[in-house]
C-alpha cells in the first residue's frame, strides 16, 4: 500500500508541529539586554523561561523571573523577598531582621535606593537586580504582585561557553539579631 509511508510521514509532521506548539505555549525564549543582572546574566545571553504566573509556592527566593513594567518592557530580576516576609533594604538586605547572604550580588545599594521596612503581602514579591549599583527594581517600583510575574528563567542556551541550567541559589541568612528591634522613631540608645 503506497499511501502508508505518506500517512506515517504526515503523522510525524503533525506530531512535531503539535509538540512545538505545546512547548511554545509553556516556554519562551528571550535575549538579555542590560547589565543589572550581572554577573549571573550578561547582555546577549539567550534564555529559556517557563511561561505564566506561577502559583503560590512555585517561586523560590533566588529565582530569576520576568515581568512587564509600566512602559511595556519585559524585565528580568531576582526574587529576594517572599510573600509575608518583612524586608529592609539598606546597603545590605535584611529578611525578617536577618541579613541575607548573597554571593550572587555585586556592589551595594546606593543610598538613593534605600528603603525602610517593607512588609510583603500574601501575594507580593520583592525583586532586585544582582548588580546592586545599577538596577531599577523593587527598590524603585515597590513589591510586585504574583500575577504580574510572567515567567521563570530556567536555562541559558547561548553563549555555548555558559550554557546550562540557571541554578537557584539556596537562601542563606545571617545570625539572629541579639538586640530587640527599636520602636519606630527611636534611632538608638542614648549614650550620654
Amino acid at each position: 500500500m503506497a499511501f502508508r509511508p505518506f500517512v506515517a510521514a504526515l503523522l510525524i509532521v503533525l506530531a512535531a508541529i503539535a509538540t512545538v506548539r505545546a512547548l511554545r505555549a509553556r516556554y519562551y525564549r528571550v535575549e538579555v539586554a542590560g547589565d543589572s543582572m550581572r554577573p549571573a546574566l550578561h547582555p546577549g545571553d539567550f534564555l529559556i523561561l517557563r511561561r505564566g504566573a506561577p502559583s503560590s509556592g512555585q517561586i523560590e527566593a533566588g529565582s530569576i523571573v520576568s515581568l512587564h513594567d509600566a512602559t511595556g518592557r519585559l524585565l528580568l530580576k531576582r526574587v529576594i523577598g517572599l510573600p509575608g516576609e518583612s524586608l529592609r533594604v539598606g546597603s545590605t538586605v535584611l529578611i525578617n531582621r536577618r541579613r541575607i547572604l548573597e554571593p550572587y550580588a555585586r556592589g551595594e545599594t546606593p543610598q538613593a535606593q534605600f528603603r525602610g521596612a517593607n512588609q510583603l503581602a500574601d501575594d507580593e514579591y520583592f525583586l532586585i537586580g544582582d548588580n546592586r549599583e545599577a538596577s531599577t527594581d523593587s527598590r524603585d517600583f515597590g513589591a510586585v504582585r504574583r500575577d504580574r510575574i510572567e515567567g521563570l528563567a530556567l536555562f541559558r542556551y547561548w553563549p555555548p561557553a555558559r550554557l546550562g541550567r540557571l541554578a537557584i541559589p539556596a537562601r542563606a541568612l545571617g545570625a539572629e539579631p541579639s538586640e530587640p528591634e527599636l520602636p519606630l522613631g527611636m534611632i538608638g540608645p542614648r549614650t550620654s
Partner: protein
Amino acid sequence: MNIRDRVASLLRPDQVAHAHCDIPCGIYHPHIAQQGAESVERMCVLIGELGSPSDAAGHATLSRYVAEKEKAAELVKHEVRILWGDYFKPPHLEMFPDLHTKVWTIMKLAGAARGSVSIDDAKALRAAVDEFADMFWKSKE
C-alpha cells in the same frame, strides 16, 4: 559573519528582556564638579580681562561670561550635592569626619562665586572642590 555569529542569529529569540537600569545608577564621578569650578575661575579671569565694556558687543560678551559663571557655580553645587547625598555613606564619614563641613564650605564658596568676580574666591572654590574629589577617590581605595 563567522560561523558563531551565524549560529547565534539562527538561535536568537525574537523577544528582548531587559536587565535594566533606568538611570545611570551608581555611576558617580567628581569630574563635572571640578570642571564647573574651573569654569568659574576661567570666567572670572575673562571678566577681568574684558574690563568695563563700552559698546553693545562688549556688554553682550560680559553678559555671557557672567551667565556662564553662574551656571558653572550652580553646576558645582548640584554635582557635589549628588555625591554627598547619594554616594557617600556612613562608613565614609568615619574616614572623612570633616566631609559635611567640606560640603557646606563648597556650597558657601559656590554661592559667593556666583555673586562675585573675584579670582581668589574662584580659586578657593576650585581648591575646595579638588579636596572633595580627593575624598571621593580615597573612598574608592
